[in-house]
């Protein structure tokens, strides 16, 4: 991977979307260079700006921040914020932890998955995720990190169909 990293990507002026993302990720990482213990914060910054971690970021983070590749993988695989490699353009997150579970998350997850399948949307991934601490508005669902509360299965399905468009 190191050879590839040296010969392709941002440094070599790659003008594909992946190349642009790599360049952006390298820029973000460079902002943390020399900062003690910055690996996690730097990777989170990349995740939240790009909505994923480019695979090349493993090598780039190791190089720029001075870690080994296993250390970078160790952090990426530990925290559930990270999704490595671009799989989908959009995410629908359904909280499935206890407060949402007892207020109907199971039916909501089913409704959202059915709506996405029925709509044939392949660029949208449905994730059952852990508590975002909005239990006072349970059950909650997010479209690309925008959370909606007090949902019913019907409204959650509408949200999925309308790609996050307002349903309230």
């Amino acid at each position, binding site marked *: 991977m190191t050879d590839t990293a040296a010969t392709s990507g941002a440094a070599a002026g790659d003008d594909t979307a992946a190349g642009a993302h790599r360049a952006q990720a390298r820029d973000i990482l460079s902002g943390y260079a020399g900062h003690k213990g910055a690996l996690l914060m730097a990777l989170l910054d990349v995740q939240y700006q790009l909505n994923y971690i480019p695979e090349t970021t493993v090598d780039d983070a190791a190089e720029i921040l001075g870690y080994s590749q296993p250390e970078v993988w160790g952090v990426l695989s530990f*925290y559930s914020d990270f999704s490595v490699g671009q799989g989908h353009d959009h995410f629908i997150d359904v909280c499935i*932890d206890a407060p949402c579970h*007892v207020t109907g998350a199971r039916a909501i997850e089913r409704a959202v998955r059915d709506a996405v399948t029925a709509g044939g949307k392949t660029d949208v991934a449905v994730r059952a995720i*852990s508590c975002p*601490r909005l*239990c*006072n508005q349970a059950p909650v669902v997010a479209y690309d990190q925008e959370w909606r*509360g007090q949902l019913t299965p019907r409204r959650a399905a509408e949200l999925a169909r309308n790609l996050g468009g307002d349903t309230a």
Partner: protein
Amino acid sequence: MPSDIYASLRQEAERAWTEWDDPSAARISVGISAAALTVGAGRTLDAIRATVAELGIEANILEVGDIGFSWADPVVHIARPGMPRVTYGNVSADAAPQLARDVLIDGNLRPDLALGVQGDAPIPDTEIPLLKDQSWMRDQLRLVMADFGHIEPGNVLHYAARGGLASLDRALHGMSPQEVIDQVRTSGLRGRGGALFPAGVKWGFMGPPSGGDRYLAINGEEGDPGAFTDAAIVENDPHRLLEGVLIAAYAMGCTKTYIHIRAEYRLPLLRLRRALHELEERGLVGRNIMGTEFSHEIEIEATGHAYICGEETALMESVEGKRGAPRPRPPFPAAYGIFGRPTTINNVKTISYVPTVLAMGGEEFAKIGAESASGTAMLSLSGHINKPGIAEIPVGINLAGVIENVAGGIRGGKQAKALQCGGPLGGIMSADEMDMPAEFQAMTAKGSPLGSGGILALDEDTCIVDLVKNISEFIDAESCGKCFPCRKGATHISRLLATIVEGFGQTGDLNKLQSIGQSMVAGSLCGLGQLAPGVLNNAVRYFESEFAEHIDDKRCRAGVCAGLTADAPQPAVEAAIA
């Protein structure tokens, strides 16, 4: 005697406050929080701005924090010129323009949407009660939440105008570090992360500064599903936390504070960063704070989503940017903490009480609450209740009363079945036990420790086995994997529970579950493994017959577990009979 620096800040703050809260002007404020935004509070604020501009109403508009009435979000507060503020609930973007028109132009105070009048003086000729007399507010005592929903979060002038930073001024100019520690010790303030360790004693472990860096770490991880008060403090009154941090750091001689908070909490982070920036700009964080010898640096650590990082040694690893796996103890953090330096870790809530402790004095603070734990408890109320939200009560008031009044009772007229408290590592109690004090030790004895204040109320239609399975899946997912009894045990417990709810349980499964739990307790390095069987064991304690029905009779009385027969015949069964 306030210092000159504080006195001039206070003057400036009062001017800024009067600019917003000008009694001769109309004032509209909208409660914005991550929770309120999920039900459209942002659109409500936009609608109000648009209406005021369109109608040419002269009114001050402010984005304030969350007053805690999540059940009534979006919440809007409106004051007519010369009158007290009235708090309105369920003000959608569609309803907001009419409400603003009715109240500010027609003088119709809209009792249908009003939750109550703020302050102590009723408005003559209206039927709107005082907010403080409402059933859900009567039992509350808001020390930490005093300014929730009243000030613009992150605005240091608003914070100071309401009395903020006076405690810091008093500590820095009138008290030695030891005197501050003594006050906190006298107050009886205990760690609100759930462990309830006396805060003043913990601070004393650091000893006098010996040169070199020493750190304070603030635990804002609050990973428990069903607990959301730490994020609420950061989001609604970030300066309270920061003032507490500065006082604690002064008392222990810490050179730097790391505030650990998840990167995904965007609004709390945004407001905390603004709050810190405003303090830095005024020289209230940095070198020679308030003209004294005391210097302190604060760093906000936006970290990843991992429940285990609420454990203090895992949190230190996470602050260092690594995987958040717990460290063996000893050495303890006070000797070897972040980057190997002496470190004290306090919860967000604990530290947020500190300005109040100094303002009241330790002895006065100790008079509030219960003997075992002074002060108030901040509650995160969720589940099958009419009024989910954030509340603050004196420790020790009646728990059944809290559920009935503060939480508004069980929704849909149903009966309460159980309370699951203290998060996934807490416990559960039968609703039959609720007539007891809402107090940490008493609730622990009942098997449902209050912990960090999360109360998940469950109605009669809840399947306890299904709930325990859900919680065991959470623990399985969040075990960091370092200790194999926890890693393997959590997996086996959740798999075994899955087979039970699918109708393949076998006699002896309950013993097996409890024996795996014992191994986790004995063989785990940190609290996650050690506390993991708490909910399971207490669910069996109160609801053993329900487990037996699932295992032996293949029956789920709540009709939740799809593979089992329900008490009420399911449609498929009826069809088969017909």
